[in-house]
């Protein structure tokens, strides 16, 4: 394991990145969203301007902008999380809180994703054999390409623009042969990219049914720290932030 550092400072990790990807190692842990809120506060102070998020679809962008401008219309955003991102106790709420925080902090919120129906349609038109030969791409890859385009356009609009993008780790980096944003965005000519992966913490199905997600041993399991590196293929400088299993109280947990 790489050297650990208990001074978890997102501004330091971000450096001069124009795109900082915050990856969650699991959608199931609400705590990762609250860690992201902590990161956003520091990153806004460091000059980041936009907050892009996997968990909202492109078609909601107008609704999001209305919410951003007026503070009205959050209900429809929360409903979407409730419907599609109910991965455990407090998880939909935590996504909602993340969006609320991004607005309050003053970051422009950007929806990245396709809808579930669109993903299904893409996969229906690209079976395993076709994807294997490369004659079409799975919805995972198509989504990565669409997100890349959206983020790249923002970064190319102005040199002042800097994006924090929140997504599952296997979109930020390549999972198997499905190229991750770390590579796709570089291919767009944007070179200052960093990736921070959230690990550890705990995930709960109910208030009384939680599971620790840390792979660390002994005292480290309950320690808050970060280390440089990522155990799988990655094309940019990467860090892992370890959330303590017994840390941060949310919703009575």
């Amino acid at each position, binding site marked *: 394991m790489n050297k650990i550092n208990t001074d978890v400072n997102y501004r330091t990790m971000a450096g001069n990145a124009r795109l900082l990807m915050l990856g969650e190692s*699991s*959608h*199931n842990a609400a705590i990762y969203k609250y860690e992201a809120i902590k990161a956003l506060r520091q990153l806004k102070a460091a000059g980041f301007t936009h907050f892009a998020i996997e968990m909202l*679809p*492109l*078609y909601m*962008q*107008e609704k999001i902008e209305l919410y951003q401008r007026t503070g009205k219309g959050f209900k429809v955003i929360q*409903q*979407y999380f409730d*419907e*599609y991102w109910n*991965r455990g106790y407090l998880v939909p709420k935590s996504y909602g809180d993340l969006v609320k925080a991004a607005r309050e902090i003053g970051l422009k919120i950007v929806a990245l994703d*396709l*809808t*579930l*129906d*669109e*993903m*299904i*349609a*893409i*996969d229906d*038109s*690209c*079976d*395993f054999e076709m994807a*294997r*030969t*490369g*004659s*079409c*791409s799975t919805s995972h890859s*198509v989504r990565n*390409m*669409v997100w*890349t*385009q*959206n983020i790249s*356009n923002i970064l190319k609009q102005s040199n002042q623009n800097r994006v924090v993008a929140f997504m*599952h780790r*296997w979109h930020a980096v390549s*999972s*198997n*042969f499905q190229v991750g944003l770390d590579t*796709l965005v570089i*291919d*767009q*000519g944007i070179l200052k990219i960093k990736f921070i992966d959230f690990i550890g913490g705990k995930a709960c199905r109910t208030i009384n049914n939680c599971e620790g997600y840390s*792979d660390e041993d002994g005292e480290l399991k309950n320690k808050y720290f970060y280390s440089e590196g990522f*155990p*799988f*293929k990655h094309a940019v400088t990467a860090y892992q932030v370890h959330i303590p299993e017994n840390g941060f109280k949310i919703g009575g947990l």
Partner: protein
Amino acid sequence: MNKAITISLFLYTAFCTTSYAGSFFPKYDINNSELPKTTVMAQCQKSLMHAPKQLESWCEKAYKLGYWQALEYIGLYTGDGSRYISELNRRTESGELDPIFALAWNYSYGRFVSRDLEKSISLFNRYLNDNTQQEKVRLNSVHEELLLIYEELGNTAKSAEHKKYLEDNDDIKIKNVMLKKQLEAAGVYLNIND
């Protein structure tokens, strides 16, 4: 790649259809013996992000049904890719193309194995030599990987060779056309310019 694509979100907002039904991880009975192989494979793949606690059971089932790539997902989830690499080695020895490609890829990035660029080059070249079906996109991706390796090794002659191959074979254009076609087939009306 995809440098020339620009997407207008305005058209998208105007034409898209939405639905709140469904789930990123459909609920199937894993014990249902009549589940199609493709469904089991898809469940294995999707579980990596959407149901990690079910990954091993779905991927073991997929593996039993002949989907050897399921071992990769198990490796990604557990962090132990030794079974996957053993499978790739065994299949590479018997000359199967996909495992040759996969093994080359893993050696290129040092994933589940110690990084070995020479070995990776050798395997990618073997793939190119043995691949008589000429699947253009896959061939392009092999040349892309070789380009990256030779760039890293500072071999300008070889990297120029692979770069030229990609230019001559419309790599970016093919990918852009494919993306546009797939999005439109899915009812996603984004304005993509090549």
